[in-house]
């Protein structure tokens, strides 16, 4: 019964998506949304941005289905899209932060009423409170402080459990380069998480 979309391989489903099959696309979303969402969340450290970007990743898949080559592994293609979007979004966030910081400083100078800052912090959901625990915040900050390529490599390795070969394909690098990225990432993380404890 391999004809059922739910039992088809990712690559077969993409073949159907290329022909405009919406159900095949929905199956792919349900199969990969959680892993893509978490990959982006760990990369950016923000749930709202992660949700928005995950939707963007799948929209890119839908729009670019015609360019997908069936001989390429779907997850490699998917994570390559996600990685590129993450890097672009990271630049945008940095610019936004610079703007927000200068805006907040302006607000503080103009008014002594600090409630504006309290409001911008928002109310956290139970899940966000869990993520917001001291330990999680430390981990996310440590990840966020890593150079971009080290962060991509370590997140793909630790959370998505990808092989060095797959990571190399996603990042368009050699396996030995991925190896050295991971060594540096682990050493950096050790310095940030263990030595500074």
């Amino acid at each position, binding site marked *: 019964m391999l004809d059922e979309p739910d039992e088809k391989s990712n690559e077969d489903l993409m073949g159907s998506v290329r022909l405009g099959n*919406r159900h095949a*696309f*929905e199956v792919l*979303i*349900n199969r990969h*949304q*959680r892993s893509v*969402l*978490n990959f982006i*969340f*760990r990369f950016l450290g923000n*749930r709202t941005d*992660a*949700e928005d970007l*995950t*939707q963007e990743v*799948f*929209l890119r898949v*839908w*729009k670019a289905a015609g360019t997908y080559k069936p001989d390429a592994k779907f997850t490699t293609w998917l994570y390559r899209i996600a990685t590129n979007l993450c890097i672009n979004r990271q630049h945008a966030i940095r610019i936004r932060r610079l703007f927000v910081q200068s805006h907040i400083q302006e607000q503080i100078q103009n008014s002594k009423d600090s409630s504006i800052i309290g409001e911008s912090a928002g109310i956290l959901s139970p*899940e966000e409170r*869990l*993520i917001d625990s001291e*330990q*999680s915040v430390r*981990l*996310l900050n*440590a*990840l966020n402080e890593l150079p971009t390529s080290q962060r991509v490599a*370590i997140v793909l*390795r*630790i*959370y998505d459990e990808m*092989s*060095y070969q797959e990571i190399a394909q996603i990042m368009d690098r050699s396996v030995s380069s991925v*190896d050295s990225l*991971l*060594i540096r990432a*682990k*050493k950096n*993380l*050790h310095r940030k*998480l*263990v030595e500074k404890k």
Partner: protein
Amino acid sequence: MKTCQNIRKNLSAYQDGEVGTAEKDVIEAHLRSCKACANQHEALLKAYRMLKSLPAIEPTPEFSRQIMDRATRVQEAFWVRSLGQALRLLPTPSAIVAAAVVGLLLGTLSGNFLTKRQFRPAWTLSAFHSDQALTLASVRAFDATPPGSFAEGYLQLAGQNPERSYEK
């Protein structure tokens, strides 16, 4: 010391199960005998385990539906955009009317120019010739290139119709 450097270089790959069996045996043997490298191995593992403890977030139940809705909007926007582009390639109605008027004028003028010497209305002929001319004209009306037609004018101009009309 050289051995320690080589071992540490491969520690990460060893932890990730990315070294071959022979390499793995060498590293494990070294870790059993070298306290410094064993400490380094533990330190890296500790950072790794801490990161692994970061909880995952779950997509909301309506998340995939939201993506599908956005995909639908993208598809609709694509068709609207394609149709718009196709319509933009068409000339505006005023341009079509102007082109038709210019075409009619040019056609009339060139038709008159090409045929005025070959075709005269029946009332300009003498009474003696009028019946004969009308008969000949009506017979030639069934020609592939009837007298006075644009096609006849063209053939004449191209020199493919040397034999001239009944009026000669």
